[in-house]
């Protein structure tokens, strides 16, 4: 039904096009809108030829509460890490959680300190370089932290003295984008459990 009305409207308008009248008065849109203007809210379906129901947008019920976009928000907290301990950082090869001889030597020294400070609970923080996606790197960081934890357990450190966390690639020690920076970022840091 509506189609028919529109079709007839168009035939009429096509004739107008052919006559070459100025568009201001002759475009189909002009006509339909002026017809709609007379119909108040525009929700009344078709009366006069060319009148169309206006589909009203739902009032701005934006799903998800909005907060204004903060300019320059989310900057790094500068300075030294909270809970820093005199324990050596250990480093890893690319996409690896294996402990190299130097890493084991550093962990031997860390274990000695932890035995002397049995009351200090240590958080082992696993990190990766920036290459690869965030999800995989979170798992890889966790794996590195667990490799360190397992080694320390073998050295006699009680499991209860340790916790682990992975930051994946989100807390680089060096913000650079080359192998020198990446090598510094594939690491486990040691802090006091907050």
């Amino acid at each position: 039904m509506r189609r028919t009305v529109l079709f007839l409207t168009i035939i009429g308008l096509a004739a107008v096009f052919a006559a070459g009248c100025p568009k201001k008065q002759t475009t189909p849109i002009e006509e339909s809108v002026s017809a709609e203007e007379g119909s108040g809210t525009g929700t009344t379906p078709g009366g006069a030829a060319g009148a169309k129901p206006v589909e009203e947008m739902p009032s701005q019920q934006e799903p998800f509460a909005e907060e204004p976009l903060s300019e320059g928000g989310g900057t790094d907290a500068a300075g030294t890490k909270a809970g820093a301990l005199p324990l050596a950082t250990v480093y890893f090869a690319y996409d690896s959680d294996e402990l190299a001889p130097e890493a084991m030597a550093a962990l031997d020294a860390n274990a000695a300190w932890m035995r002397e400070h049995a009351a200090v609970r240590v958080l082992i923080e696993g990190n990766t370089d920036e290459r690869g996606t965030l999800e995989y790197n979170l798992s890889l960081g966790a794996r590195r932290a667990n490799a360190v934890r397992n080694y320390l357990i073998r050295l006699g450190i009680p499991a209860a003295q340790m916790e682990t966390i992975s930051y994946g690639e989100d807390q680089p020690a060096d913000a650079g984008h080359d192998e020198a920076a990446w090598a510094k970022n594939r690491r486990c840091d040691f802090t006091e459990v907050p």
Partner: protein
Amino acid sequence: MRRALPFLPLLSLAFVAGSAAAAQEPPAKPGDLEGVIRDKAAARIALALPPTIVGPGAQPAEAGEMGKVLRDDLDFSGWFALLDPAGEGRIPPDRLQDPAAWREVGAAELVISKLSIEKERGLFNVKVIETGKGTVLLDKVWGGKLPADLRRLAHIAADEIVRELTGRPGIAQTRIAFVSGQNRVKEVYLMDYDGARVRRLTSTGTINLSPAWSPDARQLTFLSFKGRKPSIYLLDENGKIITLAPKGGELNAAPDYAPDGRTIAFSSDRDRNSEIYTYDVTSGRETRLTNHPAIDTAPVWSPSGTEIAFTSDRAGSPQIFVMSATGTNVRRLSNEGRYNESAAWSPDGGRIVYVSRIDGAFQLVLHELATGKETILTSGRGNKENPRWSPDGRHIVFSSNRDGGYAIWAMRDDGTGLKKLTTGEPAFTPDWSPIRR
């Protein structure tokens, strides 16, 4: 074997220039990628979209903005070859609303749009006319508040035009969730699918990652470091964060909402190794799906909910695997390259896009499940990561540092139409909303 995409810009140009070029395209050869791409381009509808008419009460700038949003929507949809709005230099200005004039320059369809304003209420009238016989296929008026609803009005019209001319749903009203921020603070954000109207959804002051939409587009599940241990949460429409209660683990990560709207797949290292689990939001019941000493993470559901693709390094380096939703029938999907991860399953179920390290950079690869054929979708500088599909299965959103810092980018699934959606603070892990019913 993988193939890179053929060089496309010239091809697209030929179509926009006129229908004559399209007619000369060789017929697509089955199974030939280039043929498929050309076929797709050839199928584009030649569409005329002259400038939006400035109706009563409207300012030229408003009508111009409206027309631009509509044009961008129709262009990015990939369904249309849009003709030059001025009529290819062959249509006099007073005939720009004349279907016959557009027919002469090769347009199959003509879209006439007009913006009028009464007080603060905008009326957007859109007419779609087939240029051959002058048949009116669509003629509608949408009303809304201006300027607040200006972009939404254009998006609604664009989706209606797509539906009318293709029979398929448009995506102009969809949105993209992502995270943005520096290393130690990343919050969840939301934006329109074209990058407009960015707004922040969380303010935890911690790392948040991997937002993923519920199938009804009313919730997001995401990873947050807001608690003592990183774990998965829900964010509802009112901005309220709901704590999910998986039974523990040092790291519950990479959540993905199942098509059933109640199950979330995620990875957890509760056994000191990353494995994939499902969590039932209504009952709290958990099921372990993988059991392997390697890393298993980044699960994504198939659209049917019967299978899950994921990343595992059980073969010695990260690769894409597929298993049933109960964890059985595990098989390897990616076979080329040493480092493949971050899969996303297409809404039609037939394709998986994932990240692959190629010549030192991370690129997107499209894997067709029926044939095993792979196509490299991206090339050049910088990494492309965390791909996700648009709900129409014709577009892919991802994060990339191809021009410097990380930002959200989107493109069509044939690698064309690439555009950057975010600027400023680095942005990561996008997810494209389903179409809201």
